[in-house]
């Protein structure tokens, strides 16, 4: 008799598990990712990274049992299309979005604030949004431009920078490019460096006179480059043609991909330094899992898997998933934008199995620390030359405070 009861109990539980599957309501998230436009060099590798990781998450059972539905929209770095894309994502119920492109972040910030939907802007966007008390719904997670600038200057100091060292800041003549200026200037003033700016109009087609100025008139010792899209490869070629040593060129994160070195020609790009906020290569547990997923599906593993921009896509997707997971864990269903925001702010020691140094987000620090690692072109790949570090954090945070006081 008891055995029968026990059997019925087990059968009931089993039936419940089968009939009520783990796919409860899917959670919608959205992302704008440009495969066209001036940043398409980055997008065609980044966007698959995001998509692949989400697929992996869903294959492993979703976030706390809920499938993640990720909608990718394309806006070609154009503000009007990104507004339409954001409205569409909002209408479809996205609880958090990835905004792509600094001018787009500026344009959409008011909407995120009033709609209470958090946006992540990894490695770009507005650096003053580090302070989450002023910008609660914008998360520049993983090394904003100011942190990158600070880190570049730190590397220069570590490599022998001293009073009188000449630094050339080569940047895009647009809001994204100018983001780095405040930190670079602050550090140069503090350390007594000689700093000069060299602007390159977007999309960075030619930069002959600027490079001639840097190498022949100004005779810079170091170049800190904040270019992206097709411009980094042009800068590599021009600097090399002028005889400037590429191992004295430090690029921000978006000019440091395989695509950039390849476009310049690997042989010509040897020694070029670039900052990364996510580890590079296939030797990481998460990337191995993705490769296995591709193989299980019978698909060839694309060449860019494990590359610089692809891995960043994986990281972005992981952050999105983590925010949703913490939102469900701490605040329960149904998931809303507000809960995801608190989920992001609860991220502690998140490192995606070695992808990045442990990232902790707080309401005061929406960036999660601002850690970068510097890689260098050797042969036909990027190899690390430093450990994870960050530089001039006090200057960066001081600037954040000063910028936000104006609001």
């Amino acid at each position: 008799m008891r055995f029968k009861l026990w059997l019925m109990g087990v059968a009931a539980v089993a039936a419940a598990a089968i009939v009520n599957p783990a796919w409860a309501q899917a959670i919608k998230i959205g992302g704008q990712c440009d495969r066209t436009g001036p940043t398409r060099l980055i997008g065609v590798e980044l966007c698959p990274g995001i998509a692949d990781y989400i697929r992996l998450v869903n294959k492993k059972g979703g976030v706390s049992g809920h499938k993640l539905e990720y909608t990718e929209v394309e806006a070609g770095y154009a503000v009007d299309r990104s507004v339409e894309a954001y409205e569409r994502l909002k209408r479809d119920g996205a609880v958090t979005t990835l905004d792509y492109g600094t001018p787009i972040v500026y344009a959409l910030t008011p909407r995120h604030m009033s709609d209470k939907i958090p946006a992540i802007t990894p490695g770009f966007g507005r650096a003053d949004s580090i302070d989450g008390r002023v910008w609660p719904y914008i998360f520049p997670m993983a090394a904003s431009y100011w942190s990158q600038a600070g880190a570049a200057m730190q590397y220069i100091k570590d490599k022998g920078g001293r009073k009188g060292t000449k630094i050339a800041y080569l940047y895009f003549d647009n809001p994204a490019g100018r983001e780095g200026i405040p930190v670079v200037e602050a550090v140069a003033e503090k350390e007594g460096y000689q700093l000069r700016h060299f602007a390159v109009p977007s999309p960075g087609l030619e930069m002959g006179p600027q490079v001639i100025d840097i190498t022949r008139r100004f005779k810079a010792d170091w170049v800190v480059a904040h270019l992206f899209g097709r411009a980094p490869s042009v800068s590599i070629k021009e600097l090399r043609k002028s005889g400037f040593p590429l191992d004295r060129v430090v690029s921000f994160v978006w000019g440091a991909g395989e695509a950039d070195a390849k476009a310049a020609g690997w042989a010509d790009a040897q020694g070029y330094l670039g900052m990364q906020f996510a580890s590079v290569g296939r030797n990481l547990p998460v990337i191995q899992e993705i490769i296995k997923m591709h193989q299980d599906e019978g698909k060839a593993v694309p060449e860019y898997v494990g590359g610089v921009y692809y891995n960043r896509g994986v990281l972005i997707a992981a952050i999105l998933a983590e925010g949703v997971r913490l939102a469900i864990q701490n605040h329960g269903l149904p998931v809303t934008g507000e809960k995801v925001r608190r989920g992001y702010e609860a991220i502690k020691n998140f490192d995606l199995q070695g992808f990045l140094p442990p990232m902790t987000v707080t309401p005061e620090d929406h960036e999660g620390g601002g850690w970068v690692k510097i890689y260098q072109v050797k042969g036909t790949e990027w190899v690390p030359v430093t450990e994870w570090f960050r530089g001039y954090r006090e200057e960066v945070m001081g600037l954040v405070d000063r910028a936000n006081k104006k609001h």
Partner: protein
Amino acid sequence: MAFFADLLVNGLMIGAMYALIALGFVLIYKATSVINFAQGDLVMFGGYIAAAMVSLYGLPLAVAVPVLLACMVLLGFALERGILRPLVGHSVVSVIMVTIGLAQILQGSAAMIWGAATLNMPLPIPSQPLVLGEIFVSYTNIAAAAIAAAFLVAFAYFFRLSRMGIAMRAVANDQQAAMAAGINVRLVFAISWAIAGLTAGIGGVMWGNMLGVDTNLALVGLKVFPVVILGGLDSIAGAVLGGLIVGAVESVAAGYIDPYVGGGTKDFVPYVLMILVLMVRPHGIFGRETIERV
């Protein structure tokens, strides 16, 4: 002083390359009176074909270049036949807009066929600079300028001495009279587009090597306007001179003015120069003044 010399020399070499693009533009205008806003895109397309063959398919340069030239000639023929011939006689606005539409199509097709990445166009030219006393010159610029100069000289001879060249000049001068003299005007149109395609192809190789090949390469075509306005829309010598002047002026201006205004001078100084020329002498240095009748 060395800085100025550096800027000047490099500017002149870039100017020779502008002249090459402008040559194609002027050819088309001279023969068919069409303003080709898509010249830059033709350069880009030529660059893509060459870079794809060398970088993606691994063909040697000796094979890639003749194939490129053949393709560009065919493309020129096809464009003239398919797009420009139906629009003979339409207004200036229409023709300008058609070439703008053509530019979009070329950009979209190039990106669709060869992908979004920037392709490298490697040439067997050393990448270190050549040091002449105080001046650094890059071998690439020298090679580009030399090739451009060679083509310009070749075309000068072509137009002066060959039968087809003289026929083209005749058509450019007075279409009706040329037809009356028995010249096959349609053939002249086709050939002028083909030659423009050819120069665009060579330009694509050289510019692609300098700047990397992707759809942004088409933007060099925008520089063609200051060049041809300065030199005269229908003058080949003007294209050469205009190119050199624009190249030199923008390089020197950028080098000296940029630090004071925060950059970007290179892109707008040629246009300021152009507006000045337009106010003072609209038909350019060597252009012909057209007389309009009611």
